């Protein structure tokens, strides 16, 4: 298995607690596992190249408002808010009991991936033996444990399963955050497919079935932007390049030819 470069390993756990199954208690550290490493840009002032910052501006008089004067409001009716200050919300924050109690075991994909929110790696916290025991048991049974986890101000349902020789925790979305596809009218009058057509479709799917390798998929936009960045660093200017259309290909052929002739002159 390919070893991940050290630089990619997060330095600090974002949560410390323990994983509990019945009487087994395993102290663990939670590390983020998902990063957004796509290309990101900063907004700059076009004319002088300086970065731009965001400011909170009051919609009444366009005044810039300092953080001390910022409160949170919940809109109960159009333009009508219930106002909270920080302390009030702090008081009702769910208490993190620093414990993930796994009280049910399911097949990992019994939970559809549409509910998967974010994954974290669990590492033993001076509990190597117990961690290893739990990991091996998960691997042997090929099951995922279901529990709850509180991170910052939010409590999440969570799944713990074995992945590439580690315990991985995945927070789940609540049912209210996921749309029910059957709410679409389009699905109401779907016809039963003809058998012959269905057989054909099944055959195609069978024939094209294969292994999935995520590394086959490259972020082509990111690659292109990185090439542009390299060019810019070398001081080359960049002209926007549109995808080459069929007609342009013909022009390029003619161009190559002419350039050759002009060179000879």
């Amino acid at each position: 298995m390919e070893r991940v470069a050290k630089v990619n390993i997060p330095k600090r756990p974002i949560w410390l607690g323990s994983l509990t199954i019945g009487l087994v208690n395993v102290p663990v550290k939670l590390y983020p596992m998902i990063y957004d490493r796509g290309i990101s840009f900063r907004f700059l002032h076009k004319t002088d190249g300086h970065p731009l910052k965001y400011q909170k501006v009051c919609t009444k008089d366009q005044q810039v408002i300092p953080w001390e004067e910022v409160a949170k409001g919940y809109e109960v009716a159009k333009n009508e808010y219930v106002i909270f200050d920080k302390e009030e919300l702090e008081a009702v924050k769910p208490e993190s009991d620093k414990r993930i109690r796994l009280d049910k075991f399911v097949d990992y994909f019994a939970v559809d991936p549409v509910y998967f929110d974010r994954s974290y790696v669990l590492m033993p916290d001076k509990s190597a033996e117990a961690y290893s025991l739990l990991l091996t048991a998960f691997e042997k049974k090929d099951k995922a444990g279901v529990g709850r986890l509180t991170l910052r101000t939010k409590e999440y349902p969570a799944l713990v399963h074995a992945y590439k020789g580690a315990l991985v925790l995945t927070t789940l979305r609540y049912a209210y955050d996921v749309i029910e596809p059957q709410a679409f009218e389009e699905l109401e009058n779907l016809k039963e497919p003809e058998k012959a057509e269905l057989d054909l479709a099944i055959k195609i799917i069978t024939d094209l079935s294969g292994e999935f390798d995520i590394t086959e998929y490259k972020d082509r936009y990111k690659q292109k932007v990185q090439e542009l960045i390299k060019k810019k660093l070398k001081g080359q200017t960049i002209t926007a390049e549109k995808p080459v259309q069929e007609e342009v290909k013909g022009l390029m052929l003619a161009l190559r030819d002419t350039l050759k002739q002009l060179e000879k002159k």
Partner: protein
Amino acid sequence: MKEKLTKVEFTNLEKILFPKLEIKKVQVIEYYIKIAPKILDFLSNRPLVLNRFPEGIAKKGFYEKDAPQGTPLWVKTKKSYLETSKRDINFVVCNDLDTLIWLANIAAIEIHIPFSKVGSREKPDMVFFDIDPEPPATYKEATSVALLLKEKLGNLGIESYVKTSGKKGLHIIVPIFPEYSFQETKTFVHKIGRQLAKEHQLVVSEFNETKKPGKVFVDYLQNSHGRTMVSPYSLRAVPEATVSTPLDWSEVEKGIKPTELNISSVVKREKDPWKKIFDNKQRLTA
């Protein structure tokens, strides 16, 4: 990343510029790319006048002397005072392939050139005879007059060059050392025209006779500062997409038809009768 063959950003390649033959802009650009090795010698270092048809030749085009808005910085331009406009004009100068392609991309279907170069605007390096038949006289009559003119110049020891106008006329050029004023070249052409008119019924030499039916006018008036002719190898904005094509005199004698010389045929022509025309600069002896 792909190598970049041209600085030009192509636009609206699908636009139909010659509706009768359904010729798109992409084909016009392709024509100018292919003809570049032949046409560039005639364009280079001359302030150009463009006849542009962004909406195709069925719609009205416009003559443009000033470099249009949005002209890329890499396109060479030359400020020059134009008497007829009474102001400085920022002319486009086309010395390279990219500029030519850019001209095609802005639908400058016809490219017109003056008879003198940047830097010596008052000293023409070409003398221009415009052989212009008035109906019912046709290209055929223009041909006869062109051949008479060739002979007349030949008798003076002057070698002349001929091209189709792409319409019904013929253009005859004598490359000269840039030592004469436009007044002198104009007078020369006028004089030759008058002699021909005296000798041949078909020919008229005076401006007020140009509309005489069935006559062929030897136009001398274009030999002036700021006046132009359509460049050799320029397309013409006519339905048949003809090209103003340099000919061998033998082709004129055989009666080659101007419509045979068009956007698709001219690039295939091996002949380049005006090649090195400027290596044969002459002096006017009359």
